[in-house]
């Protein structure tokens, strides 16, 4: 593997690859793990996961691909034989100019949200190391509560907070001297997406912060101390010791944020019900729901799902490449 994905012993930017050299395992002088030659064990270890995925996702996935090339609506669901339409669903999809508008909107929204979530989440995880114990506990409990709150409740509460007439946000801003009496937060698309971003970042940060904090436990104290003795400042230590250790988990978590934020549905759906103009605030998630499942056109819904998959793969290609590079030792 490239790069110090594991504990990096020295503050030096990048230790050379040394997969060929055995270490003694105690002096902290080993940049990478070693793997043994091929063994029969892995199949036994992999099989349970493989089976579970195959059974629960494999067949539905194949069916999804087949569906995407059929005309399959509710009638077919109730027994009428589906007709094969080849790529017609896809053609209809990509020739819809509104879809491309929504796609661009979704991409921007996704990158802003995933970026904001990662920055806030990573920042909190890093700062947690420096907080005094009680404060850290308070923050962790707070994040956990936010994470544990059922989605129905959190979306309802956020909707109330930003309510045009009875919202706490308007109430506070008015008391603070602003002209926010009856301010409609969802009316303008930009303001709508701002509220959506606040809600989504609030909902996603706990997961990121927790997972990265767990990953931080793998940062070697000894290495950090050694780095400090060698004269590395806090920024250098962060860059050369801490972040490289976090990297593999950050990549996964970041990838997940991109995937989730690209197909965000519930938050937008609920906010659209509360206000704003649906056509100006649709993202791929809500548009697709309306296109397919909402109208019972499952063939189209499947085509859209495949389209989303392709889009996600494209969007995350650099990420995936970085992850694979890690794999190649």
């Amino acid at each position, binding site marked *: 593997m490239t790069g110090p994905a594991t504990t990096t012993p020295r503050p030096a930017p990048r230790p050379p690859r040394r997969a060929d050299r055995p270490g003694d395992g105690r002096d902290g002088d080993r940049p990478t793990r070693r793997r043994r030659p091929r063994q029969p064990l892995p199949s036994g270890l*992999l099989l349970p996961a493989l089976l579970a995925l195959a*059974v629960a996702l494999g067949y539905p996935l194949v069916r999804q691909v087949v569906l995407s090339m059929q005309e399959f609506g509710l009638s077919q669901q109730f027994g009428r034989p589906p007709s094969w339409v080849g790529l017609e669903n896809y053609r209809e999809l990509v020739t819809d100019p509104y879809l491309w508008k929504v796609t661009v909107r979704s991409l921007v929204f996704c990158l802003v949200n995933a970026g904001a979530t990662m920055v806030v989440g990573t920042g*909190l995880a890093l700062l947690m190391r420096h907080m005094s114990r009680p404060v850290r506990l308070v923050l962790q409990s707070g994040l956990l*509560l936010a994470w544990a709150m059922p989605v129905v409740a959190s979306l309802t509460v956020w909707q109330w907070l930003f309510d045009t007439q009875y919202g706490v946000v308007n109430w506070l801003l008015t008391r603070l001297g602003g002209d926010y009496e009856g301010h409609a937060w969802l009316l303008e698309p930009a303001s709508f997406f701002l509220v959506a971003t606040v809600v989504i970042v609030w909902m996603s940060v706990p997961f990121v912060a927790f997972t990265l904090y767990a990953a931080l436990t793998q940062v070697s104290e000894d290495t950090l101390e050694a780095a400090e003795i060698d004269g590395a400042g806090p920024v250098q230590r962060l860059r050369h010791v801490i972040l490289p250790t976090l990297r593999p988990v950050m990549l996964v978590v970041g990838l997940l944020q991109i995937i989730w934020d690209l197909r965000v549905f519930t938050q937008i759906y609920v906010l659209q019900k509360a206000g704003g103009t649906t056509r100006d605030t649709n993202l791929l998630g809500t548009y697709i729901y309306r296109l397919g499942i909402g109208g019972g056109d499952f063939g189209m819904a499947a085509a859209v799902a495949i389209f989303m998959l392709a889009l996600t793969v494209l969007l995350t290609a650099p990420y995936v490449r970085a992850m694979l590079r890690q794999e190649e030792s």
Partner: protein
Amino acid sequence: MARRAPRSLRVTANVVGLLAALVAVFPVYWMVNSAFLPRNKIRAPEPTWLPFGGDLDNFRTVLGGGTFWDALATSLMVTLSTVVVAVLFAFAAAVAVSRFRFRGRTSFILALLVIQMIPVEGLFISQYKMLESADLLNTVGGLTLVYVATVLPFTVWTLRGFVDGVPYELEEAAMIDGCSRTQAFLRVTFPLLAPGLVATGVFGFIQAWNEFTLAVVVMTREDRRTLPLWLSSFTEVNRGTDWGAIMAGSTLIAIPVVLFFLAVQGRMVAGLTSGAVKG
């Protein structure tokens, strides 16, 4: 760890931490506050900041009839099985990809990534058919199966990162000391993975605990409802939604998550305070 931090950094960290905690908690507080208020106080021109004058009526409403306990039992069974099975399966797979080299390894990892990217919202019909043909509808096992598959890719990936983080040399050293390979792994590496297991376990727990879309089609029998389905029974189209009941129900639903976290979070801290990996 915090001992080393300069004073200014620590103060900044504490201030940011408290502010962040406030923002994180406020909506939760609002939910709990609303749970104690009558419906005409929940939404009104003047916000009610503290539940003075409130009562337990909303909790009585949601707990009346005893349907909560059935749903709680189902949810606990589904969620705990999901967490245990997913973490076990994923852990095994993570060890395989991290500690062994075998043909198809990279492909497996990439496949996991791609699976993660597939929009699952539209899959519920096919998953329903699959469970139907296996006679698993309205069963804890059936729902667990689809949940496990949903959280597996992330869990494998994350745990893999954690296993990678423990240098193989630690195990080798133990083997030199006379342990078998498995023993070495269990005694040396496994304890260092606790934070990762906790993090992925909490993730799986919350995913399964709050899932609605699949549960609503799989669990159609009233006595097999999970908690989110139970909660949705207070969303009434024809009589107006009883928000007080929704908030009280949500508060009750959130409690087990907090308890679960409290039960496992010690492991996360333990990993930290023991100095973690002496790589």
